[in-house]
């Protein structure tokens, strides 16, 4: 049977090479223009230890990881048990496992017999030993087998293998390639295609393989970001690591700071001086940056803060995704803070949303917080290559010469709240900036009327930024009765859920705002106003997004919440199930 997409899982312990295999498959798919989405999971160890990948490959664009697996490769059932949550199988799925390692696997397999899994025992080690002379090459054997299932050309695979292993010498590369061939042959002999659906595709231009974190870093680079300061924290560190390597090439400055507080303040210093500046962090770092984020809003310094969310509260589960930094992002700093919050919804969207973040920061002279998460930050996707010729985003409006006399840095003249700025070392633009409430010239004041006026100015900017840049993604049936609202990385699963609903006969549509704060309330309001029932889906035990929507909209009694903790990705299955349940209640 030919299909146009397939979802595979691979799980093993330390030396099994599941991750490498997943990465190489993704690259191979990219070379022939296939879409792929790769999720990796690790155990608690720093290095080594169990790991798994989940790979969905498709002929059409995807931003959802798929519900259940079509096929699973298991090197160790013990390890599989640790990843069951994220590697659930379809009924009748193909299970390929290592014969030599655990001979009685089919009995040992902890799968419910009702799943009707079809088991194939493959002597991975043996094949590896024979072909590559090293049984550690067993993941390459597997790579070959899977490539065969996916119809991926072996010569593309060869190139990728050489690129990967050539550092270790041609011999190593060759051995690995041999193992791949052996795997492909074995698969051909098994006639796997008769057992499982085979991917049917025709070649298209090659794609990029990139993670959300790298995409965000690329976005910053092209937007014109020339200053980055950060402190390592999982799952955001790659953004910093990439920029440390690349920004200096275009003359940008990078600093690994002593902590997140320093990073945020350094970014404020650079932003104040005139640079487009950015920092990246995750929950605990966001909490530490809160005071300085308030300063950026008060001093009207453009800057971008990327938060790649993980499970909270506190240290939580650092390697797993959640959407529970929402309220902290919107309201975390004390006082009536000023900022814009955006959320990317996929790997390529990280690129575009970071660019937009810089655009808004510069246009409205305020901090823009981008809420990504581990789910998109760490997953790899094959995507259409970014345009390297995108222009940098426009720099903030600068005061003209005439405005420099008695320069009013916080002039109230412009009804949209934006006051022309100067970059530091402009002659005649000398002025005082402060986190203390100030008048138009920047001097400290404590009068109510100025405080009120300045609050209005700052919040007007936010509102205007929303009017100009606020955007929501809508999808699904035009005459939908059921609405699904989610945010950020849930877009993919919501699209899938909406599609399935419509297939099931529920007329459904979905909405995912790109700008979270200020909320483009009119668009969201008109979306819910037209529906019988709206389900708000999120990975936050507290249902932060649901609460936030209620706080910003009217007639929200038709909204209900589907919210749970993170540490496990959302599936279309559970969402559709939730809708079915709600519909029964609503219609009953």
């Amino acid at each position, binding site marked *: 049977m030919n299909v146009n997409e397939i979802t595979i899982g691979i799980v093993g312990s330390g030396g099994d090479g599941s991750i490498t295999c997943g990465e190489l498959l993704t690259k191979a798919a990219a*070379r022939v223009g296939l879409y792929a989405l790769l999720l990796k999971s690790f155990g608690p160890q720093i290095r080594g230890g169990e790991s798994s990948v989940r790979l969905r490959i498709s002929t059409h664009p995807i931003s959802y990881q798929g519900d259940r697996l079509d096929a699973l490769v298991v090197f160790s059932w013990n390890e599989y048990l640790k990843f069951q949550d994220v590697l659930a199988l379809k009924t009748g799925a193909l299970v390929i496992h290592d014969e030599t390692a655990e001979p009685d696997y089919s009995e040992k397999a902890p799968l419910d017999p009702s799943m009707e899994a079809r088991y194939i025992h493959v002597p991975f080690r043996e094949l590896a030993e024979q072909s590559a002379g090293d049984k550690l090459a067993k993941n390459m054997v597997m790579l070959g087998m899977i490539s065969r299932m996916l119809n991926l050309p072996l010569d593309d695979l060869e190139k990728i293998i050489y690129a990967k292993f050539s550092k270790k010498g041609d011999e190593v590369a060759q051995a690995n390639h041999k193992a791949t061939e052996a795997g492909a042959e074995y698969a051909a002999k098994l006639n796997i295609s008769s057992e499982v659906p085979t991917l049917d595709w025709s070649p298209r231009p090659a794609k*990029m*393989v990139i993670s959300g974190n790298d995409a965000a870093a690329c976005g910053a680079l092209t937007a014109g970001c020339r200053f980055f300061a950060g402190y390592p924290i999982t799952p955001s560190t790659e953004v910093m690591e990439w920029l440390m390597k690349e920004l200096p090439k275009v003359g940008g400055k990078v600093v690994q700071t002593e902590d997140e507080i*320093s990073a945020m*303040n350094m970014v404020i*210093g650079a932003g*104040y001086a005139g640079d487009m500046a950015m920092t990246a962090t995750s929950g605990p770092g966001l909490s530490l940056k809160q005071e300085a984020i308030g300063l950026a809003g008060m001093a009207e310094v453009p800057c971008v803060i990327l938060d790649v969310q993980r499970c909270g509260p506190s240290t939580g589960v650092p390697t797993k995704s959640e959407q529970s930094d929402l309220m902290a992002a919107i309201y975390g700093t004390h006082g009536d803070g000023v900022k814009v919050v955006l959320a990317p919804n996929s790997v390529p969207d990280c690129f575009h949303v970071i660019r937009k973040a810089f655009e808004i920061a510069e246009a409205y002279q305020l901090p823009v917080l981008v809420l990504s998460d581990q789910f998109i930050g760490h997953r790899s996707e094959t995507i259409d290559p970014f345009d390297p010729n995108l222009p940098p985003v426009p720099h903030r409006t600068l005061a003209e010469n005439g405005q420099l006399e008695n320069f009013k840095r916080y002039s109230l003249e412009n009804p949209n709240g934006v006051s022309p700025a100067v970059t*530091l070392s402009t002659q005649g633009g*000398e002025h005082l*900036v402060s986190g203390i409430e100030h008048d138009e010239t920047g001097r400290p004041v404590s009068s109510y009327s100025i405080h009120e006026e300045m609050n209005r100015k700052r919040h007007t900017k936010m509102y205007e930024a929303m009017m100009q840049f606020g955007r929501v993604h809508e999808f699904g049936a035009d005459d939908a009765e059921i609405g699904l609202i989610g945010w950020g990385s849930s877009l993919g699963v919501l699209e899938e859920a909406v599609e399935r609903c419509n297939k099931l006969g529920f007329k459904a549509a979905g909405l995912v705002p790109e700008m979270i704060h200020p909320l483009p309330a009119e668009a969201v309001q008109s979306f819910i106003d037209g529906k019988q029932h709206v389900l708000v889906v999120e990975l936050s035990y507290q249902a932060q997004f649901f609460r936030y929507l209620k706080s910003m909209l009217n007639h929200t009694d038709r909204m209900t919440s589907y919210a749970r903790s993170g540490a496990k990705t959302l599936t279309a299955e559970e969402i559709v199930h939730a809708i079915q349940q709600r519909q029964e209640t609503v219609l009953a």
Partner: protein
Amino acid sequence: MTMVTAATQPLRPEFVPASFKSELKPIWCKGCGNYAVLTPIHKALAEVGVPPHEVAVISGIGCSSRIPGYCATYGFNSIHGRALPIATGVKLAKPHMTVIAAGGDGDGLSIGGGHFPHAGRRNVDITYIMMDNEIYGLTKGQASPSTPVGDLTKTTPYGSMDRPLDAASLALAYNVSFVARCFVGEGAHLVQTITEAIRHPGFAFVHILSPCPTFRGVDEFKEIRQHIEFLPDDYKTDERNAAFTAASRTDGKISLGVFFREERATLVENADILSEKAKAKGKNTIQEIFSQFMP
């Protein structure tokens, strides 16, 4: 582009101390030591001869941290304890500017104490002026990390018990490349030291004893006067360990002068070196950079 070098003549003699004085009238108390820091800063800037728009004065929060408002330069009165990171950001974004970070003992040794070692080891080329009054002035008289043992303050109603920190000794442990101590009663020395600090290529720390008559009594000034002692003429400024000994005397005397200076690569220079190294790998256009993601 105006580079601050180790010159001894003003680069731009048209600027006089008044060029750096803003119109805002200080609201410090009568007799506050900080007045005697403000004017020397203006004088030192004139002495170095940089135009006001090429200067940024960055502070945290505190009485002393109000100083940017009183300078006709770029100024940032930020949040408590964060003058150094902000100043570092400014310097990296505008390497040709003269950047001064300024603030109190609480700002720099207490809440901001975590940034000081790192500014030192990065050798960020700014001048850091700490006005040490051994008290929290702005919040009306609580103990600071430099309050002497036994002193009564609002938060040590039975006498302070923690051993005070010496800012200059810390700076030496932090590999700061220029470390000096001054007293507001020694105006000429103060002007000269701040001038040298600004001219110093790298992180320059000037620890200034600047009494707070309001919360430490009007006699503090005279008290300090009795204990100060300038470093001997033959003092060598290139030995960090000796400098540490000189800065942290235990005989009741307080040394004034430049304890240590060293020329080594600054953060800005290092950033340039980094750029060169990165570029040397080739593939510097965005197109080329992006190509790493093509399989």
